[in-house]
């Protein structure tokens, strides 16, 4: 299955590892799952990709548990830890 760079960027907008996700999708459900997911998130990706500071999901979650480390230092907001 050929996936364009833009399609891959759309998947990276949603999942952490697009290559791993596509490989699993093709092995379990099939090409239609890949196509459907790309089409589902295309509009959201196009609306956000040129915004300042845009990051892929992997970039957004480089250290997903860092916030929790701050909790130990009591630097969180009074709204709660998570």
């Amino acid at each position: 299955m050929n996936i364009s760079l833009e399609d891959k960027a759309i998947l990276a907008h949603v999942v952490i590892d697009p290559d791993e996700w596509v490989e699993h999708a093709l092995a379990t459900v099939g090409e239609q799952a890949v196509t459907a997911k790309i089409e589902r998130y295309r509009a959201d990706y196009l609306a956000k990709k040129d915004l300042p500071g845009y990051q892929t999901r992997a970039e957004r979650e480089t250290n997903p548990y860092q916030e929790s480390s701050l909790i130990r230092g009591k630097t969180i907001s009074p709204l709660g830890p998570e």
Partner: protein
Amino acid sequence: MGATFSRVKTWLAAQTLTASDLNAEFDNVLNNFTPAGLDDESASDVAMQAVTDPYPGSVISKPTSLTGELQRIRYMINQIIGKTYWYEDKGGSAQVVNTTLPAFLVTPAAEQTNIAVGSVVTVVWGTEIKDQAGNFASNAFTAPVTGLYHFDIGIRLQDMDAASGYYILILFTSNREYRYIYDVGHAADFLYQSLVLSCLADMDAADVARVQILQAAGTQQTDIATTSWFSGHLVC
């Protein structure tokens, strides 16, 4: 024969057709050409059981006759009621069990001992109590279709380390993570603590869901007990 009613008159050669005869025959057809007047019943058990998949390979299969239409509706009734034949009753109960809905319940086959510290650990589910539709494998559930899925997780941790600071229970899904943080408020190590998490997860077809746990710091000594569980099913 396509009708269950008969002609008004059987004509012989050289007979004279009158307006009255003609009107009577047309009235006969017009008045009796109703569902009850159509000869469309199944001629045998086999005919009554005949079904046709209306959507083979995700492509619509249009009927070319009323029989074909009925066969497609029977096929869907079979899918809904989960019976071999569409006409099988449910023994007087109004409850319908959907035996094709993706659903699973798994537990650990053995204790997962001394989980790693400072990194995310995937919980190992070696025993499948139930895996309806066969979507659970390699410690992960794969969504067969796009939809909302409900998940429940119960993790019993043992030999917990007070120096950990915190533990995080994570339901990882391809689109996002759902987390439950446990702030260790103990001065000394403690024997056990259950962490539970429930959520309604938005998943696309082929997305995965797996359970992970993080011990933030301390000593590698915490175990995951076999009384833990992970279950889920498609809601809508």
